[in-house]
Each structure stands twice: as structure tokens, then as C-alpha cells.
């Protein structure tokens, strides 16, 4: 059962140089790893080891059963050097430093079985929890071990997606190549077993026709599984867009999908679930894609969690130009600038983007074979040439001319230029929330398309904050319409 769906607004990014090839390389074991004790969804866990202890790869070195969290593992065999607070992406987090031995063996979790049908749901949940996979993606996978904010019985819908609506994406074909496709489908069935009451939705990129067909064929016997082919328009991969597109239900903007009983997982998370249950493999490595022109080679790497970024990128990064490294998304991602920091579970692609401070002669007259634009004022729109990206802002700030681009692309149908006008003139009142200011997903698409280079998304966010200071907050316009689950826990984590 295959359905095509999409949403109004958004923007399809296409044809960029620097997409990762379908090739996977394994990185050698690093000399030293740094394991942050908060990775993915959930709170920080307590360390179970102390300096000087010998650890093995796959050993749980941090765990906290009282609060919403998931265990953390050593990704290598070796010895604990020190336990120290580090500043990890604007958060103070305790991290465990481990001196690694160059051995690749890892110890599996107890009680796994390739024949997972024989395992009880309790055991499966335990394996998923202990492997750390339960902390993946925005709301984690609910198990009876408090790995998410709701309990497994509260899950009404499970959405699994591999859309790739970002500019650069992990290659879905690579992730699901060979045996992995089978593992992926087994992973979905395992999840169905622990959420027997849930409807399961699988959303795939509609451009991968062959893959979609193959999966539909294999799963044709599963009447509980709905498959959708979606247009990879940014930001379709966001939880906030998947829920209305697939289920036709409104999303409680600003809260999590779990609050309305929906769990959303991406492809890699499902593969980790399979590995945990059928191979007993804890979450000690991730596949990441090196994207963008700033890398000498664009490929996928299998990297041990905790590997310092320097060791991952240095061999691949081009040195002839200044580069900006961005995590996961060019529109909303964080900049990676401290290379001694480690890789965590949340990484999926890293983009090296040339910093461009050069002034271009008569730039507005250029034909633009390689220029990206929402408008079709460049030749690249006609000839479909491969496009290049850089950090230049490509123009001078000007007043808004009401061209309406921001309004056309906004996925939640806000009118960004209207809100911008209000906030710029210091008109902060209820009208802002009436016009939907709290629905903003911070997808940054409006700031991207604006020909006047106005910082729309940023201003809207500021407007939200100023609105809250005058006592008009999100709760008032979102909460009355929803019956949210696990709200207290969610607040605790945020």
C-alpha cells in the first residue's frame, strides 16, 4: 500500500556538488576517545567507572535508571584516563576520557538472539535500552526503563522515515544496501512487537523508486505497515512536518511528538535497533557522511563514538581555503569549530562549506550556472547544473519589498514578513501569537530565501522571547488544543 503525500510550502533543494558517494570506509581505532555522558535524548547519566579502570568496548560506563536517560558505552577497549567536565555544544557535560588499545573486538549484550521472535517484549526492550539505541532521534524510543518521556503502551503511532530533505543527506541507498535492507525491515518488525498497539508508518523519498518498490514488495504481507513516498522538500524530515503530512493531525508546536503519542525514528536508528536485538551490538559507532566541497572526498565513514573530530576530518579536509564545518544541516546546524571535541550519537552528516569573503565583480549580472536560488533568475534553474554553496550572503540588506517568498516557503503557513514588521516596530502584543508566531519550527527557510537578506527567523525567535516576557506564552496558544502526555518529564529534560 503506497501513498504519495506532501505539504504546502517548503523548498526542494536539488543538484549540489559534494553529495556523499555510496561508499563506506571504516576509520581506524583512535588512540583516545572522549565519551560525553549525555548523548541524544535524555538527561546526563552517572559515571560507573573511575580513572585507572580497564574497560572493554561495549561496556556500559554511564547509566542512570532514575531519570529519563539511556546508558552510555565505552566504544573501545582500554583504560579510563580521567573524568572531566567539558563544554560540549554550549552545555557543561561530564565526559570520560579513555586511552584505547588498537583491538577491534567488542563484547555483545547478554541475551540477544538472531531469532528475535523467541525473545519476550521485556527482553527486547531491555536490549534496546542497554544498547543505547533508545536515545536516538528527537524523542527516543520508549521502553519500560524510562528512556523516553512516555511509556511503550502510550505509543499510538510509530513513524519511520528516510526522506533526506536536507541539502546534504546520508545516502539512503548505502544505508539500506545489501543485507541492511533486510535488517531494516526486521528492525521495524521488532519495534512493532514492543508497540503492538501502534500503527506503523514508513515514509521514504519518492525519488528512490527502485528502493521504494523493493520495500513495498517485501512488506506486502504486513497489513499493519503503511508506506508513503514523500517529496524530499525541506523540511519534510522534521517531526513537525511528518505528523501533519502522514497522519493529517496537527502538531503541538514547541513540544515533542511523543507528547501526542507518536514516536519518530530515522533509518539509522532502526538499524541500530536491529543490531542491538539480533547481534547484541551496543551503540558504539555511527555512520556519518562527509558532504560539501570542502572535503577532498565525499564519502561515508564508520566512526567510533567519542573519536575526536580532528581525527575524523583532518585527512579529508581541504586546506587551501578557509572552511566552515557544520553539523547535520546547513540551515539549522551548529558550527563545529573546536576540533578536540568528540563525535556523539547525534551526528549523521558533517558539511564543509567554503567561507567566501570575496567580492564578486558585477555579481548581479552573472548568469549563475552554479548558483542556488529559490527564484529562477539564474541559469542553473534552466540547465540544472550542479550547484555550489558558500557562506557569502550574496547581497546587501535592504528593506522588505513584500515579494512574498518567505511566506510561500514557510512550511507552517506563517507570514514571516508580517511578523518581522511588527517586531521591528516594537509592536509586541497578542496579535503576534494570533498570527502564529509560536508555530515557527525554526527551519530558517524564510531567512534563506529573502532577497533583502533580512534575518527573519532570528527576529521571529526574538519576538517569541519578548512576547513571553510580557506574559503571553506558548502554553496559552498550544496547550488548550491538545491532550499532551508526559509533559512534566518533557519540561524536565528541556
Amino acid at each position: 500500500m503506497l501513498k504519495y503525500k506532501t505539504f504546502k510550502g517548503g523548498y526542494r533543494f536539488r543538484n549540489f556538488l559534494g553529495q556523499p558517494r555510496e561508499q563506506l570506509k571504516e576509520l581506524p581505532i583512535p588512540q583516545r576517545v572522549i565519551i560525553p555522558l549525555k548523548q541524544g535524548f535524555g538527561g546526563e547519566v552517572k559515571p560507573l567507572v573511575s580513572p585507572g579502570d580497564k574497560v572493554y568496548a561495549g561496556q556500559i560506563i554511564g547509566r542512570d535508571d532514575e531519570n529519563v536517560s539511556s546508558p552510555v558505552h565505552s566504544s573501545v577497549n582500554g583504560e579510563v584516563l580521567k573524568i572531566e567536565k567539558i563544554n560540549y555544544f554550549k552545555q557543561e557535560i561530564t565526559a570520560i576520557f579513555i586511552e584505547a588499545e588498537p583491538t577491534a573486538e567488542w563484547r555483545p549484550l547478554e541475551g540477544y538472539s538472531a531469532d528475535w521472535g523467541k525473545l519476550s517484549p521485556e527482553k527486547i526492550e531491555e536490549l534496546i535500552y542497554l544498547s543505547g539505541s533508545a536515545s536516538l532521534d528527537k524523542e527516543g524510543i520508549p521502553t519500560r526503563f524510562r528512556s523516553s518521556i512516555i511509556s511503550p503502551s502510550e505509543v499510538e503511532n510509530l513513524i519511520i522515515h528516510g526522506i533526506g530533505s536536507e541539502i546534504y543527506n546520508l545516502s539512503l541507498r548505502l544505508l539500506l544496501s545489501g543485507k541492511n535492507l533486510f535488517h531494516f525491515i526486521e528492525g521495524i518488525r521488532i519495534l512493532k512487537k514492543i508497540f503492538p498497539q501502534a500503527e506503523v508508518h514508513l515514509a521514504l523519498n519518492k525519488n528512490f523508486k527502485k528502493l521504494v518498490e523493493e520495500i513495498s514488495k517485501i512488506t506486502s504481507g504486513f497489513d499493519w505497515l503503511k508506506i508513503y513516498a514523500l517529496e524530499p522538500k525541506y523540511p519534510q524530515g522534521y517531526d513537525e512536518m511528518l505528523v501533519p503530512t502522514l497522519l493529517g493531525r496537527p502538531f503541538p508546536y514547541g513540544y515533542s511528538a511523543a507528547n501526542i503519542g507518536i514516536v519518530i525514528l530515522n533509518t539509522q536508528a532502526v538499524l541500530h535497533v536491529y543490531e542491538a536485538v539480533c547481534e547484541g551490538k551496543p551503540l558504539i559507532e555511527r555512520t556519518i557522511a562527509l558532504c560539501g566541497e570542502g572535503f577532498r572526498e565525499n564519502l561515508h565513514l564508520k566512526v567510533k563514538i567519542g573519536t575526536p573530530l580532528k581525527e575524523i576530518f583532518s585527512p579529508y579536509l581541504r586546506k587551501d581555503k578557509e572552511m566552515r564545518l557544520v553539523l547535520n544541516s546547513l540551515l539549522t546546524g551548529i558550527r563545529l569549530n573546536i576540533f578536540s571535541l568528540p563525535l556523539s550519537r547525534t551526528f549523521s552528516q558533517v558539511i564543509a562549506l567554503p567561507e567566501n569573503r570575496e567580492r564578486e565583480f558585477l555579481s548581479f549580472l552573472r548568469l549563475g550556472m552554479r548558483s542556488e536560488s529559490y527564484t529562477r533568475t539564474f541559469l542553473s534553474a534552466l540547465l540544472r547544473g550542479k550547484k555550489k554553496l558558500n557562506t557569502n550572503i550574496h547581497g546587501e540588506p535592504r528593506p522588505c519589498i513584500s515579494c512574498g517568498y518567505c511566506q510561500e516557503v514557510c512550511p507552517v503557513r506563517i507570514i514571516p514578513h508580517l511578523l518581522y514588521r511588527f517586531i521591528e516596530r516594537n509592536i509586541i502584543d497578542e496579535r503576534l501569537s494570533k498570527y502564529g508566531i509560536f508555530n515557527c519550527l525554526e527551519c530558517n527557510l524564510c531567512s534563506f530565501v529573502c532577497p533583502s537578506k533580512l534575518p527573519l527567523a532570528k527576529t521571529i525567535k526574538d519576538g517569541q522571547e519578548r512576547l513571553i516576557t510580557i506574559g503571553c506564552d506558548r502554553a496559552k496558544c498550544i496547550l488548550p488544543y491538545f491532550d499532551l502526555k508526559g509533559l512534566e518529564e518533557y519540561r524536565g529534560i528541556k
Partner: protein
Amino acid sequence: MKLVKKFIEGLYLKKSLKRFKPVIKALDEFFFGTDKVTYISLRSPHILDNIDIKRYMFTVIIALMPSVLAAIYLYGLRVILVIFVSYLVGGMVEVISAIFRKKEIQEGFLVTGLIFPLLLPPTIPLWMVGVGIFFGVFIGKEIFGGTGRNIFNPALVGRLFITISFPQALTTSWAEPLRGGLAGFLRYKSDALTSATPLISFKSGHTLTNISELLMGLSSGSIGETFRLGVILGGLFLLYTRVANWRIPLAYLSSVFILSFLGNVFFPDKFAPPLFQLFSGGLLLGAFFMATDPVTSPFSELGKWIFGFGCGLLTVLIRTFSGYVEGVMFSIIIMNGFSPLIDQSILNFRYRYLKR
């Protein structure tokens, strides 16, 4: 390129030119793109679209090129002079108010300065061009606070002003288009005069001009409106590039077509037939290039439909029932005035449930 850079850098350093900083800056920005990069914060994207206002406005100019070239061919080299005067005076107003307001010069006048002359009759005296564009840019735009804040389309304001002030010059004599060989490319102006445009002939004697003649610009009319094939091509180019929104021209043209069709069925001697209406006067130029001005038309989608329909209705009514033969300019200006109201009502309607 290096020379230009040196020259501009030199200008920046001259103390005596300090007051003209906006002009120098505009020149600098005109020749060289920016060296700024995107902010590094979670709330801004790392990349921005390649489009900027210069390119946006320039796309409109490219779209107008077929009409401009055809105008020179049809009405002689004097057209260039008319455009030059318009740019000169319009540019001066823009520069002076930029210096006065200490703001940067905005590119909007590049379009206004080109559209305005295209709306004028070929025989227009040059001083009148200057007066019109001065009035249009100054009263129509700068008084409101510059680009982005004006309510009325500046080119139309200028045109309206001279129509009302000098009705003689603007309505009675029209130049016959030149044709054959290189025609206007080699001549200063067309000397043959006529008193009738196709719309006038219909009103006075019910003579219909051939559609193909109308399309190819072989009938008389304002400088830029008669080569309608070029206007249509330019307009479609604008819609393709997304610089103009397709909703307004579609609503405008189709409502003119449908209304005049209905009118023509019931009152054939009052209403001109639909195809003739579509291809006569300044309708195409107005629908593609002026009604679509984003600043002065509604921003909401429904509002754009209403705006287009309103323009269409008014155009047909004015053409049929008023003393004026052409109603495009008036209807767009009137609807410009209504746009804020249309938008506000739509907002109130769309968000009515959330009011408490």
C-alpha cells in the same frame, strides 16, 4: 575591474565628497558584491539564497527589454532620450532623498525609471517627462519613506499626475509607428500623427483593429505598450523567474476577458469584444509589470486574486462607461489604495478563530 575598484576607493577617501557617501556606496555595491558571510548562530542559516534586490530589479529590466527595443524601432531614437531624462530626474530625486535621509540608495528606481517612460505617448515633451517622474518618485515614494513603504506604484502616480495636469498633450495626438527596414533605429522620431489609438477608434466609431496588428505593435499607443508580443514574452519570463507572482496577471487578464465577454454578449455596442480588450491599450503592460509590483499589491494569496479581479472589473467599467478611453492606470492605482484593506480583512478572516 581593478581600475573601477581604485576609483571608488579614491572616492571614499575624499573629504569633500563625504556628503555623497550614499552615492559612493551605491556605486561600490553596484560594481562589487558583498564580502559579508552569514552569521554563525543557531538562528540563522549558514547559506543564503543568491538572489538580491539588485538582481531582482534587474530581472524586471531584462523582461522589459523587448518592449524597449521595439519602442525604439517603432518610434525612433528619441525614445532613448525620453528614458534618459526619466532616469536622470528620477535618479536625482532618489539620490537627494538618500543623502537627506542618510540611508542607502535603493534599486527600486531602476525599474520605476524605465517603466514610467513606457507609459507615455511618443510625442511627450521632454520637460513633461521630467516633471512626471519627479512627481512620481517624490510624492509616490519618498514621502512615504522610500521603497517598501509606498502605497501607490510611483510610475503610475507620475503618469496620473501628468494626465490630469496636461490632458491635451497626453490624449489628443499619437505618433504613427515607423516601419520597414531599420525604421526607428535610424530616425529621431516618427512625424506622422494620428488622433486615434485602437481604443479611441472603438469608442468613437466601433472600428476594431486587427489582433495581429495589435500584437506586432503596428497600431498607435504609448511608447512601451504597443509591441504586445514582447510584453507578453517579457511578462511570462517574469512569472517564470518568480519575480512576479502569477496570481495577479492571471486574475486580472481572465477577469477582463470574462467580463468583457459577458458585456459584449448582452450589450455589443457598448462593450468591446474580449480579445480586442485584452490586446489593446496598456492592459498587458499593466497586468504583467505594474499590478504585480509586490510592494503595492496585497501579500496574501487570496488578496492577490481579489486585487487582480478588482483591477479587471474597474478596467472594463472605466473603458466602457467613463469619459476616459483607457482604465488600466486608474484601476491599478485605485486597487493599490485598497490593498492594505484587502490584506487586513483577509488576516482578520483567516485568524478569526484564534481571537479571544
